[in-house]
């Protein structure tokens, strides 16, 4: 599953951040997973947690918490704001968006004016929202 690669990116990035912040032990990593990418949040948290067990020492005890990021879009043409539910997308198209969320521009349309020219305001994909821990 390609989520494994994203989980590896999370662990690598979290390691860099912990070192920049001089954290001796990371206690919690909060992930924000945008609904547009349609990743199973629980499964993804387990993937990251699993990879943390063989990560750098300061990350091994960290707990992973996931916050769901609701997707929101704004049409560049008519300025309507809309949600993913407003734009009807089929299952096959959802798979392409799952791999590359920008494919939303190929398969989604503004529900008001039909334009594919919209911006993804939030809820695109995987982000690290917060890393907390202790300094020695």
């Amino acid at each position, binding site marked *: 599953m390609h989520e*494994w690669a*994203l989980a590896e990116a999370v662990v690598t990035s979290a390691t860099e951040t912990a070192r920049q912040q001089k954290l001796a032990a990371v206690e919690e990593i909060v992930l924000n997973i945008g609904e547009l990418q349609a990743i199973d949040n629980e499964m993804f948290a387990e993937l990251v947690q699993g990879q943390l067990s063989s990560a750098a020492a300061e990350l091994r005890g960290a707990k992973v918490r996931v916050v769901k990021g609701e997707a929101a879009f704004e049409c560049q043409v008519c300025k309507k704001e809309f949600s993913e539910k407003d734009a009807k997308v089929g299952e096959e198209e959802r798979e392409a968006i799952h*791999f*590359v969320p*920008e494919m939303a*521009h190929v398969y989604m349309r503004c529900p008001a004016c039909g334009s594919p020219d919209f911006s993804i305001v939030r809820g695109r*994909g*995987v*982000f*690290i929202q917060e890393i907390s821990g202790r300094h020695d």
Partner: protein
Amino acid sequence: MIDPRSSIIEKRLAGVKRVIAVTGWKGGIGKSSIASVLALLLARKGHRTALLDLDFTGASDHIILGINDAHYTEETGLNPPVAHGIMFMSMSFFSQGRAVPLRGSDVSQAALELLAVTQWGEQDFLVVDMPPGIGDASLDMVRWIKRAELLAVTTPAVLAVETLKRSLALFERLNVPLLGIVENLSAGVPSQFNHHAKFLGAIRHDPNLEAATGHPEQILRTRFAEELGKIAAPLG
């Protein structure tokens, strides 16, 4: 919020010996043809070769190489299919032949996603068909892949030459390594870049290339491929 994806790019490319970013700063100059045929030539010489089409809004490498039915597989990331001896990744796998209307920042985001999740394995060369121009995606690419070597494509046309000169100066200031300059669609007269230290050679306009599109074996028999092959010979 931290976007974790750029942190993993170096690791994804750890098994790739050289990254050649084929770039051109004007449309219609043959950038995609040169990227695709260069990958084909390197693969035929026995090099482990991959091709990444990042020209999302005008993806055409799959058309040039006649890659119609190939599809990626999913494992610990996306494994690109191998076609004609080339490991190949393109946005065309996701867009199903439709137009891809992406603004500059969206092109960058999509490129970053592919770079983060694509597993290239061990490769001698990764040829990247770069996004056209000097917009967000091009600047991001050279920032994300610092060891990418630019192969700059131009034509003899005044507008292409002037754009190339300006763009080369920009990328030089960004400390991007320049592999060289290739003049495509040459009229067979000496190039304006003949005396440039990094001028690699010229490829004459080849009317047979159009008919060979989609047929790699035919492409390899064209004068275009023969002349590009001579230019690429120093790569090994």
